[in-house]
């Protein structure tokens, strides 16, 4: 739709430079000028780990990630599991059809049976036959602040998870391994909470208008200046909702005739924003710089699909920490590529802001890079700051443009004042401007907890995905029955976790995801890792390796 000034010039220049810059060798053959050649011809077939960075000169410290491939036996058993569940699903559908079993789902009335179906029967297959059986692991109502420990509302079901009843009791002090509470700012007492209460008395809770109309408060301006200082950019803008920051701003930045190169595992908000913008989207393999470089070269060399005109803009969209894999983006290499091929970079730091880096300034700080290299720095306040909302930071012209053209600024209500105050207080604590060392202590505690927890689980032999420094720890479960069993057994032992399976993840990669927090103590982490090892009381055969799938042979990691 619209584009920022100066972009046309850059990309036009880039196109010509590529054509002129290549020197034809003998017989007109142009040698490959790839920045990142394929480093090794032979790769160990059992691990698709990306341990060795091909350009290690760009990294100041070792970058170690691993995504161990599913063992073959486990994959076969997982398919068998899904196969058996599918057969049973068809069987029970048959029973429901002939009214032998009670049918709880919505279906049309008798008079409407010949109309075009309103409820697509088959689309509901997975939900009613697989999801419903283990539905008690999700949407658990909590009734306290989601800190290191949380209180859950106890609920029972008398018809196998179709309906729930609250017993009136509360399960107290469940260790919370599911909340994105990386720095422990989800609390209802302390400096942040008091400041938020005062702001509620001063401003109220609702704003009742959009930023462009009459909803632009002085507290928003203060927040935006603080965020810009925190990130090290010229200017920034804050929005009321993190998801909406992505889905409403990417359409304002790119449009038809632009190209978006997005990572395979990007979040739904980025995917939605990219699709809403109307640009061409090309997906590169997760964190794979060769794939990204190939796409960039092809895009610049061939131009737009049919007309072969140069692209108006090329935007690379990556995330800081990918929340389902626990991997960290290879930012130094992405920036090197971006500079070489003159593309723009959109970095979504939803999980990494406040959680990575010696000063908590995110993945840019973690790698020791210059924030001015990233064109658009986006992030959310939901995770490390204990608030809600998102921000975009960058050059002044960009943010001024967004203030007028962002869909969110024009149509969505602005951020609530106590939430803005919570962000201001927590950000000041992290930066150390409140005069105490609380921020530094919490950052250090998070980093220690992460290292300790990951090391402990690895030593026990579990298969963990992701980077060694990421506070998001996915523990692989693989089989569908384990998803339900793991969630329930953890809750019985007073630990709350998030489990996720197909179709949210690939079919053989179901996992449980732990989010380490600075508020967790070492005892809590010990409890959690020991519980992972515990056997169900009635099963003497499985000596210590039941829930998570353990690595049997590899001991050199």
């Amino acid at each position, binding site marked *: 739709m619209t584009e920022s000034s100066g972009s046309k010039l850059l990309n036009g220049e880039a196109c010509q430079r590529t054509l002129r810059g290549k020197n034809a060798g003998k017989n007109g053959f142009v040698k490959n000028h790839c920045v990142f050649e394929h480093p090794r011809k032979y790769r160990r077939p059992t691990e698709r780990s990306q341990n060795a960075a091909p350009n290690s000169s760009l990294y100041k410290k070792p970058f170690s990630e691993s995504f161990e491939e599913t063992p073959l036996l486990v994959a076969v058993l997982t398919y068998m599991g899904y196969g058996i569940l599918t057969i049973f699903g068809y069987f029970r559908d048959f029973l429901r059809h002939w009214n032998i079993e009670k049918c709880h789902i919505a279906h049309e009335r008798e008079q409407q049976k010949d109309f075009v179906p309103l409820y697509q029967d088959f689309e509901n297959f997975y939900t009613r036959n697989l999801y419903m059986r283990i539905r008690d692991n999700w949407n658990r109502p909590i009734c306290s602040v989601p800190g290191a420990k949380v209180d859950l509302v106890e609920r029972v079901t008398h018809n196998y998870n179709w309906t729930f009843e609250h017993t009136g009791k509360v399960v107290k002090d469940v260790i919370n391994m599911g909340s994105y509470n990386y720095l422990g700012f989800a609390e209802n007492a302390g400096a942040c909470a008091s400041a938020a209460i005062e702001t509620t008395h001063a401003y109220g809770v609702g704003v009742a208008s959009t930023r462009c109309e009459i909803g632009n408060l002085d507290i928003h301006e203060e927040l935006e200046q603080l965020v810009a200082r925190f990130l090290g950019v010229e200017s920034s803008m804050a929005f009321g909702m993190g998801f909406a920051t992505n889905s409403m701003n990417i359409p304002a930045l790119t449009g038809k005739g632009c190209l978006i190169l997005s990572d395979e595992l990007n979040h739904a908000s980025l*995917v939605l924003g990219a699709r809403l913008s109307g640009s061409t989207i090309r997906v590169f393999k997760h964190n794979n710089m060769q794939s990204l470089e190939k796409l960039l070269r092809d895009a610049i060399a061939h131009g737009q699909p049919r007309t072969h005109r140069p692209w108006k803009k090329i935007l690379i969209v990556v995330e800081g920490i990918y929340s389902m894999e626990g991997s960290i983006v290879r930012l130094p290499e992405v920036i090197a590529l971006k500079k070489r091929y003159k593309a723009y970079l959109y970095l979504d730091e939803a999980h990494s802001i406040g959680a990575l880096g010696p000063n908590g300034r995110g993945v840019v700080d973690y790698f020791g890079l210059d924030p001015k290299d990233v064109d658009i720095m986006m992030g959310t306040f939901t995770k490390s700051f204990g608030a809600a909302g998102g921000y975009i930071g960058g050059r002044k012209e960009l943010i001024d443009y967004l203030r007028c053209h962002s869909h969110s600024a024009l149509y969505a209500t602005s951020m609530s004042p106590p939430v803005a105050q919570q962000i201001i207080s927590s950000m000041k604590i992290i930066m150390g401007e409140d005069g105490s060392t609380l921020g530094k202590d919490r950052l250090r505690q998070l980093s220690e907890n992460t290292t300790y927890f990951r090391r402990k689980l690895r030593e026990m032999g579990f298969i963990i995905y992701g980077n060694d420094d990421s506070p998001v720890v996915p523990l692989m479960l693989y089989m569908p029955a384990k998803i339900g069993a793991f969630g329930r057994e953890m809750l019985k032992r007073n630990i709350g976790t998030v489990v*996720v399976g197909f179709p*949210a993840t690939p079919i053989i990669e179901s996992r449980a995801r732990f989010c380490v927090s600075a508020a967790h103590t070492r005892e809590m982490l010990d409890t959690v890792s020991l519980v992972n090892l515990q056997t169900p009381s009635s099963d003497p055969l499985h000596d210590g390796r039941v829930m998570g799938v353990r690595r049997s042979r590899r001991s050199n990691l």
Partner: protein
Amino acid sequence: MNVGTAHSEVNPNTRVMNSRGMWLSYTLSIGLLHHILLSIPFVSVPVVWTLTNMIHNLCMYLLLHTVKGTPFQTPDQGKARLLTHWEQMDYGVQFTASQRVSYLLTSFYTKYDRVHFVVNTVSLLTVLIPKLPQLHGVRIFGINKY
């Protein structure tokens, strides 16, 4: 329940057949079926091979070419609702290879008896023809349209 939140693939059905170990599980399950059929006492070996071939082709036809759509709601606004699984997949060359192998083995074991040959060939054709790219989205006589 969220479909595809951990990756940007809006229809996970397209990737299921490419997953690791799928080929092995498929071979194992055919082997299992064959052994179960072999253990029926009064059926001779050629008939068992023909039966395996027929049942395998029938199941494959039902699962890949009859059932349409996805068993979960996808965020692509129902683009795949009228497509069979075969049409949703990006490629599946190994499945046609397996059918050819199965057909050849069956022909060998039935010692090229005429009746068996006819039955097996018909069964093979019912599964091979829908896989041709010319038949992508074609519904003969309007069968299985909605």
